[in-house]
């Protein structure tokens, strides 16, 4: 399917791009997958499965096993045995070398991983190739180096692993979230049972194969596929010492309730409704790029997306005009096309949620605008959209939409900007655009959010702690801070 050409013709763009699709031949998708338990792919006990599809075409990519509570139990037992007999006994130096090996294989197979990620998730190949997969390798490299240096990490002279980590990750950055979870867990001597999201299991299953290629001892990494029930069985399993979850605030809340009164340690990386604040002295063209990157990167399927644009009243018209012009050049279509800016919405369910909230936005009186944009016949798509005249009470200003939808709110004074930015139960990230250094530091200090991007947005790095305030969850991933969630110390 080729839609990238058509997507710009309607806008009368200066340049007409020839399609430049990345070849699918680099990936080899099996027709069905078992569960990766104790070092090998096995059939699930219940013999139930589900299909994973390409959200860009609705083509079925593979049949994937659905892990039952019994399968979860098998996986946790395998992880426990591997933890107590092998992984915790191994020197940090040896663990470190396994992680370096994995990082290298990820680099070697990077194109394959990127194509598979774009196929299963719907994100543009430009992003999976240039952002997701390089970061995945970088996280493994970074934490590989910690494995034999933990006693210098500042968590006491004898930091110890917690045991078995049960990890549940979302569909927006399937492989990157896997890396954020598995790399620090393994570096600190824990073993893992990881459940990828039901709509994006394929790169995690390919990662299982990478663990085999790396000769990682069996049971150190277990990958079980399934939906919410499987995840629930995993996080509540008695043999799990540590729960790490990235996903919605609602599910995070239910996990926090489920582990109450237990000895399980928990870290939660949940939703957000980040303010991206543009002051009147901001470099406007850079700010517009930052706004676009903030909300349209990965179709807005980003927990830290800059989904609320707070723009100073005096420059609002200029910023909006340039933003609309820039949005008109965004190319929506085939995720595998190297020219594509906006790929497919990950699932029919998510598309429905974005549609519903957008309709609520209109019904509540906000002004809706999208560039002229051809939508492919098949698959799940939503055009880049902005809402103007949004008030703080509107649902589109309060709820996480998790799609390419931006709510524009204006402000007059810096104090008002900060007050509006903080007026949310979330606190994951925020953006500040201004040429004035003192204002950046002032705003960064006032904003109640775990990550503040000044004159940039949506940047990630393995050395940098990431995580939320308030209802965006607790615990940090990345950097030295990210080790703490996987270590017992006193």
């Amino acid at each position, binding site marked *: 399917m080729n839609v990238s050409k058509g997507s710009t013709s309607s806008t009368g763009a200066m340049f007409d791009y020839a399609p430049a699709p990345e070849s699918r031949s680099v990936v080899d998708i099996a027709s069905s997958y078992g569960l990766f338990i104790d070092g090998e792919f096995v059939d699930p006990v219940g013999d139930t499965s589900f299909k994973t599809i390409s959200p860009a075409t609705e083509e079925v990519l593979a049949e994937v096993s659905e892990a039952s509570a019994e399968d979860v139990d098998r996986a946790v037992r395998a992880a426990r045995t591997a933890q107590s007999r092998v992984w915790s006994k191994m020197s940090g130096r040896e663990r470190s070398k396994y992680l370096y090996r994995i990082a290298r294989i990820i680099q070697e197979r990077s194109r394959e991983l990127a194509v598979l990620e774009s196929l299963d998730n719907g994100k543009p190949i430009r992003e999976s190739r240039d952002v997701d997969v390089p970061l995945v390798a970088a996280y493994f490299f970074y934490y590989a180096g910690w494995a034999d240096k933990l006693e210098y990490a500042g968590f006491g002279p004898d930091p110890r692993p917690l045991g078995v980590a049960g990890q549940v990750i979302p569909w927006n950055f399937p492989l990157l979230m896997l890396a954020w979870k598995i790399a620090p867990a393994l570096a600190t001597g824990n073993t893992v049972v990881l459940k990828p999201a039901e709509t994006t299991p394929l790169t995690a299953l390919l990662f299982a194969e990478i663990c085999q290629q790396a000769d990682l001892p069996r049971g150190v990494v277990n990958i079980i596929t399934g939906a919410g029930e499987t995840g629930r069985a995993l996080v509540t399993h008695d043999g799990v010492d540590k729960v790490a979850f990235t996903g919605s605030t609602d599910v995070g809340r239910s996990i926090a309730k489920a582990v109450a009164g237990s000895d399980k340690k928990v870290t939660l990386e949940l939703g957000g409704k980040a303010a991206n604040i543009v002051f009147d002295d901001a470099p406007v063209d850079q700010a517009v790029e930052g706004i676009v990157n903030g909300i349209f990167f990965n179709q807005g399927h980003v927990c830290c997306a800059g989904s609320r644009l707070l723009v100073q009243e005096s420059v609002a018209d200029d910023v909006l005009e340039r933003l609309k012009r820039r949005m008109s050049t965004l190319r929506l279509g085939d995720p595998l096309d190297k020219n594509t800016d906006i790929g497919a919405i990950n699932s029919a369910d998510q598309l429905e949620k974005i549609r519903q909230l957008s309709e609520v936005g209109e019904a509540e009186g906000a002004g809706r605008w999208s560039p002229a944009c051809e939508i492919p016949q098949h698959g799940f798509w939503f055009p880049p959209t902005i809402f103007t005249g949004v008030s703080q009470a509107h649902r589109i200003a309060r709820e996480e939409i998790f799609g390419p939808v931006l709510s524009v709110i204006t402000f007059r004074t810096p104090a008002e900007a900060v007050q509006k930015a903080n007026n949310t139960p979330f606190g994951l990230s925020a953006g500040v655009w201004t040429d004035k250094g003192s204002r950046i530091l002032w705003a960064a200090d006032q904003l109640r959010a775990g990550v503040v991007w000044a004159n940039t947005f949506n940047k990630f790095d393995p050395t940098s702690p990431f995580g939320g305030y308030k209802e965006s969850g607790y615990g940090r991933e990345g950097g030295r*801070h990210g080790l703490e969630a996987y270590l017992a110390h006193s």
Partner: protein
Amino acid sequence: MPTADSRLDVRKTYKLYIGGAFPRSESGRSYVVNDGKGRFLANAAQASRKDARDAVAAARKAFGGWSGKTAYNRGQVVYRVAELLEGRRVQFVEEVQRSEGATKRQAERAVDLSIDRLVWYAGWADKVAQVVGSANPIAGPYFNFSLPEPTGVVVVVAPEESSLLGLVSVLAPVIVTGNTAVVVTSYSRPLPAITLSEVLATSDVPGGVVNMLTGSAAEVAPWLASHMDVNAIDLTGVSDASLAASLEESAAENLKRVRRPEDGPADWSADPGMDRLTAFLETKTVWHPIGI
């Protein structure tokens, strides 16, 4: 038996400490506090749901000012609490002795350790960011740094047994890092907490930074655990495992940070380490591009 030249002592009324003032419980209730030998000591105010909500409102109101002070200033303010405690040493020794049924020597040791612990934590105010913060070597043309910030309004269920040293040990790390606190004091030994409140009220700790509720944790703590304007809860003083579990479950509603009770009895005289200091901190990472 009073004689002609004997003098009747003036007793203290023990009330709550909320927003820098000493109100009675709005419920009008009080309960009997006895000494270690079962003799009457005082009637303490029995805090209600309304008192708890007032305390949270006071703590929230105080948060911006307290967290916005320089770390140097917060350190000095907490140090001054130690100074004032030292000045009232004799009074606290007597009160701890009576409350805990301790020997004079034990009470003296508890008070001395409490004072020294405040001094220890005071010094942390402007050091914790250097120990747990970082400048991160990003792979790209950016600079970023990670700094600890206070979580917000923290509910502390204080230890039941150690009426002063235990209380100071759980309270000081919460406030020295810039949080504001709502404390549910020891139920059976609440008097040193209220006398400590007098110290706080006459030191430079702004009203609302510390709020003390005397009364039953089983009654008051559930309201605090489910309060949507509370950011964190320290369950150290909750000895009933099922109450602790249900408080943790309520706390999940707005993703409060929860510190679970310790296994087994705490040794408050031991070196506290950094654990409590970092329990109610958030890490914020601030990025900026590098370029000409």
